[in-house]
């Protein structure tokens, strides 16, 4: 089923009809810590800060919360939406239904409101007169321009401060503790005290206005909980950056591309803060390359010469890297490539999320090629997999791809604090001068240990037998040029053997639930958060029980095939049109099990929500 075809592109609210569980069914009872807010603004109006403060205030009150920024590929002016979900049960996937809309953008306000489910609440900018549109919603209006004028004498700043008014209004309506709002606000503006004061006054003005002029008549409210104590909030790209710093990265090359740019920009900040040596000098090099071809070329040059080198990119960059990826595979050079996936093909939707590069990256190159992929589902895994990716790349002497996505990379997620990397920095099979003295020489591509991985030396090694010739052309065990059929075939077979061996080295999948049910579900990356919720929906609403395995890496480990073998039907959830992970599974799954695999697909650019998964599985189960 082509799930998602009913949800249109930019205007996320236009066709999303809340099917159930919406405010309408609450019947006057308060709905505590279980609803979603959607704020519609214009891009570049400073709404990001306001939304972050709203999100963080709820978080600080101990309520599990998640935020999704739905933004256009544009610097200023086009519509943007931010959804905040509070969930006492801890669900952090996108919620399809909107319970409370904040309509600040005249361009989309009408359509946003028309698409709300009955019973939803709306806060709108007074001149928009949205209350005339429907009678089955709860409307609150506020004269934002008038209020902002009272707290912000400087007219040109008002546009930016205006959004802070709705933070105050919402705080009052949702019963947020204003002390938490102030704390979040001052954290947001950090050292910019003047800006913090100005914005705080705006928030207070909003709060006061609501207290004096609005009568609470919707059911949504926040009550203090203790579910977020000690937790952090961070986006996946920053987590990946921090993880890379702790992984000991030394060379970083990149070409700016959404949604990966912030990964390297964040890394630059971290490295400047924590990786300047006692001599005041950098223990790293970060280079903005002329394009992605150069970015990965530099990674391979640096990896060859012994650095821990990485780059971060997205789909179009991955396309450009194909030739070098094959070189890295064939010459056997370590490197880490973060692919923060966005919607393709071509330019696609540069600011929307997807898992559309899975199949391409797995075999990125001409010729017979396979690459290991690690697939984080959370900010904590972005942090941890940064170290795992380097250790794996250096052990296997091959490029390793980390497949993040825009939803994970660019949205803020709450998380338990990150764990310091357990494994030491492992540099793989690198021979020293002393090793060469003892061995009297070496054959670069000889499979000495039976794992398909040869021993290498680093350029600059002070030994007359230390050099080897890295070449993308045919070579024998001694790295000498060879066009001999047996040399070529033996080499390719060893590379395949090495990749097979990687099955034992990549992270094992997470067995989220395995209770012997007929139905198994497999998902990966950010789909996980929708899946956790969908499992509950399937069980509570439909009495359907299913097991769930979360994939964390490619190649697949034995547990994956075992999971398929032990379930009658296995749904594979992909955030792409073609069932890319399912296609990779088909390469490995025994023929008699292939018919068990079913596809759940989501590819409209929006983060996956539980309801879509549940509906799809129910419909397929009914067949």
């Amino acid at each position, binding site marked *: 089923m082509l799930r998602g075809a009913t949800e249109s592109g930019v205007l996320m609210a236009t066709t999303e009809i809340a099917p159930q569980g919406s405010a309408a069914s609450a019947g006057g009872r308060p709905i505590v810590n279980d609803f979603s807010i959607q704020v519609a603004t214009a891009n570049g109006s400073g709404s990001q800060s306001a939304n972050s403060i709203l999100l963080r205030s709820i978080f600080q009150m101990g309520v599990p919360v998640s935020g999704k920024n739905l933004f256009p590929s544009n610097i200023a002016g086009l519509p943007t939406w931010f959804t905040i979900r509070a969930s006492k049960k801890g669900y952090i996937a996108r919620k399809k239904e909107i319970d409370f809309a904040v309509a600040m953008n005249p361009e989309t306000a009408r359509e946003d409101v028309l698409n709300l489910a009955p019973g939803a609440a709306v806060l709108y900018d007074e001149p928009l007169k949205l209350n005339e549109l429907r009678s089955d919603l709860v409307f609150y209006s506020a004269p934002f321009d008038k209020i902002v004028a009272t707290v912000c004498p400087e007219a040109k700043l008002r546009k930016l401060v205006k959004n802070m008014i709705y933070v105050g209004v919402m705080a009052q309506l949702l019963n947020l503790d204003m002390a938490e709002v102030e704390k979040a606000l001052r954290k947001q503006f950090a050292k910019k005290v003047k800006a913090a004061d100005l914005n705080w006054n705006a928030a207070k003005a909003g709060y006061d206005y609501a207290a004096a002029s609005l009568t609470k008549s919707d059911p949504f409210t926040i009550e203090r909980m203790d579910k977020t104590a000690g937790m952090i909030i961070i986006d996946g790209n920053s987590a990946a950056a921090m993880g890379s710093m702790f992984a000991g990265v030394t060379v970083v090359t990149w070409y700016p591309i959404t949604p990966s740019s912030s990964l390297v920009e964040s890394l630059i900040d971290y490295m400047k803060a924590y990786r300047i040596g006692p001599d005041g000098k950098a223990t790293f090099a970060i280079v903005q390359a002329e394009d992605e071809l150069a970015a990965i070329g530099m990674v391979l*040059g640096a990896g060859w010469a012994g650095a821990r080198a990485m780059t971060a990119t997205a789909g179009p960059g991955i396309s450009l890297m194909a030739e070098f990826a094959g070189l890295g595979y064939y010459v056997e050079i370590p490197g880490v490539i973060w692919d923060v996936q966005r919607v393709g093909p071509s330019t696609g939707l540069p600011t929307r999320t997807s898992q559309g590069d899975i199949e391409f990256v797995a075999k990125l190159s001409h010729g017979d090629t396979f690459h290991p992929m690690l697939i984080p589902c959370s900010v904590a895994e972005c942090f941890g997999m940064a170290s795992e990716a380097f250790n794996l790349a250096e052990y296997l002497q091959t490029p390793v791809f980390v497949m993040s996505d825009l939803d994970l990379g660019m949205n803020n997620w709450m998380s338990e604090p990150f764990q310091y990397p357990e494994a030491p920095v492992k540099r793989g099979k690198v021979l020293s001068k002393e090793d060469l003295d003892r061995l009297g020489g070496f054959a670069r591509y000889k499979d000495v240990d039976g794992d398909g991985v040869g021993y290498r030396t680093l350029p600059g090694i*002070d030994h007359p037998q230390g050099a080897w010739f890295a070449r993308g052309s045919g070579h024998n065990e001694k790295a000498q040029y060879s066009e001999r059929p047996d040399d070529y075939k033996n080499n390719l077979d060893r590379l395949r053997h090495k990749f097979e061996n990687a099955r034992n080295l990549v992270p094992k999948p997470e067995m989220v639930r395995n209770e012997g049910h007929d139905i198994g579900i497999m998902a990966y990356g950010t789909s996980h958060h929708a899946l956790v919720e969908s499992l509950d929906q399937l069980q509570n609403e439909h009495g359907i029980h299913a097991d769930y395995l979360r994939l964390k890496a490619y190649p697949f480990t034995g547990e994956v095939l075992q999971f398929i073998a032990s379930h009658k039907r296995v749904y594979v959830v992909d955030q792409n049109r073609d069932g890319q992970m399912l296609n990779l599974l088909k390469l490995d799954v025994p023929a008699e099990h292939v018919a068990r695999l079913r596809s759940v697909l989501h590819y409209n650019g929006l983060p996956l929500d539980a309801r879509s998964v549940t509906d799809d599985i129910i419909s397929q189960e009914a067949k």
Partner: protein
Amino acid sequence: MAATATPEPKTNRIGLTVLDYRGGKTTLCAGCGHNAISERIIDAFYEMGMPPERVVKLSGIGCSSKSPAYFMGRSHSFNSVHGRMPSVATGAVLANHRLVALGVSGDGDSASIGIGQFVHLMRRNLPMIYIIEDNGVYGLTKGQFSATADLGSKLKTGVINDLPPVDTCALAISLGATFVGRSFSGDKRQLHSMLKAALAHRGTVMIDVVSPCVTFNDHEGSTKSYKFMKDHEEPLHDINFVPAFLEIDVDYDAGSTVNVTMHDGSALRLHKIEEDYDPTNKIGAIKRIMESQEADEVLTGVLYLNTAAPNFIDMLDMTDEPLATLPESVTRPSRKVLEECMEELR
């Protein structure tokens, strides 16, 4: 008593013989200019006493890019992908700035498919020697024109080139390379001296060496043939390079010689043939190159030299120990740092 003692083989200042600088047997055509360039590299690196283990050879794809296999077999080498050697070289030098990087490219590799990377390498002034073995044709694909082929140059098949050439030297000078030269594979003395001087420079050395393709571009009507070069080479000066490890004689005629002190203290003496040529004048250099094109001459020599500009490694302000071999204690921050980062995010 018979005189049986064989003479000690000649060695350089680090005790190596010239054989220690040789590589595999060439598979290029007999008479290929590239082979002569390989010989000059061997001689220059030997004479300068450059430890082969410190050198990395880098190349792209093409006849020229095969040649690193034919010299200095004790050096690491990386034969990468077409036109992308500059990025691989950049990565290697970032990882270990103590390496002496020698890139060998061709006119197709640098001026067509790789011009993007070529341009940005020049801009960065990465410390490395970048040689273009320039024959105006694609040899390995059997003789199509490259982007350095001159207007009006004729292929063996009779096809005339009607597009203007990319002048890699003018390009390199305008973009920021700090040692730019042009030479001819048949000009043994000039190329030899220029390569020795190149080893003393800390910045991008770009040398375009006209290197005739005996199989596809050495005929009448070609502007990259041995004969054309013999008739049209226009040397700017005689090059005399005095390495820092030799005692520098102070005796030269300041009126007829440009004397440049290189980064390592060695001296580059350019004995003027052209009275008023100043190789430190960027605009003058590009103007003179353009004039020589108009006059159908191939201007050779050290066209431009700037020993004051910072190179890319200086700009990155890295610690002296190569990044490649920094220990975990340096590259992985402490648990305390992680705790600090976590606290920031609470």
